[in-house]
């Protein structure tokens, strides 16, 4: 049953990811990307990372996808034909990455680490939760993340703020040319 849940999420993720690149209408691609984001969130839930699942939906499905849709609407692409001309180089890169992943998986399994993601994750999580926090494995690991993030990883947290500041300034600088250009005309 638990394996079935995993294969459902994994299957839908693979299928919708393929649709993202295979569909010719970019809006449909974006919508299948949305379905993929939701299923990745589901996969995070099976890995007991509820906070990450919520972040996945809020940030990716809520904000990043809007960016993608805006790009589609800004560029006004109705049916994209150019992607499909890049098939040879895409296939080459895809095969390279696939070989890499398979090699890594092979090395992992030969190092006596079980390749089954679900049972493995369940084991480490049930152990880790009881050791790390001492709380019952209740729904919610946001608390654990908060405790660690605001004590042990205090510095990376503040650096993240700085990075976001830089990202924001960068976004404005890049967009500024257009802002003032359109404002004058």
């Amino acid at each position, binding site marked *: *049953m*638990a*394996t079935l*849940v995993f294969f459902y999420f994994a299957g839908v993720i693979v299928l919708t990811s393929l649709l993202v690149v295979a569909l010719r209408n970019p809006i449909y691609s974006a919508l299948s990307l949305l379905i993929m984001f939701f299923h990745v969130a589901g996969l995070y*839930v*099976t890995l*007991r990372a509820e*906070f990450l699942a*919520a*972040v996945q939906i*809020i*940030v990716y499905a*809520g*904000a*990043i996808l*809007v*960016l993608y849709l*805006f*790009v589609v*609407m*800004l*560029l*006004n692409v*109705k049916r994209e034909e150019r992607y499909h001309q890049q098939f040879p180089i895409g296939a080459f890169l895809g095969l390279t990455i696939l070989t890499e992943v398979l090699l890594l998986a092979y090395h992992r399994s030969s190092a006596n680490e079980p390749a089954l993601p*679900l*049972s*493995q*994750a*369940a*084991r480490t999580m*049930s152990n880790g939760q009881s050791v790390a926090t001492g709380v019952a*494995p209740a*729904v919610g690991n*946001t*608390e654990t*993340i*908060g*405790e660690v*993030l*605001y*004590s042990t990883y*205090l510095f990376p*947290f*503040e650096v*993240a*703020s*700085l990075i*976001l*500041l830089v*990202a*924001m*300034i960068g*976004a*404005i600088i890049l*967009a*500024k040319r*257009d*802002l003032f250009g*359109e*404002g004058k005309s």
Partner: protein
Amino acid sequence: MSGAELLLDYLTRYFSVVLFIVIALGFGVVTLLASHLVQPKFPETEKLSPYECGSEPFSDARMPFPVRYYIFAMLFVIFDIEVIFLYPWAVVFDKIGLIGLVEMLVFIGLFLVAYVYAWKKGALEWD
């Protein structure tokens, strides 16, 4: 209990979430399907022609959007991530004490700088 059993026990807690999604999807599907089945169909060319607010459409709806929308979307992503950091902070606020408050003030202070910058540069202005 084995790992798989534990996981199954854990996943059953999400049954209500699954139920919610199923009801939400079902509502949309059933509503559309019911109206499709029940509606009277007397198609005419005038009825089938596209219209917007009673007037004839005068251009293609798929026209390029102003780039301004993109700036708002980018700023939204950044502030969205800021809010993400607030959730775990709010959950453990009573445990991390004053240091946590100072940390978050520094964090939000940096965002305030970004916000003031965006405001001064006119990125939040529409015109």
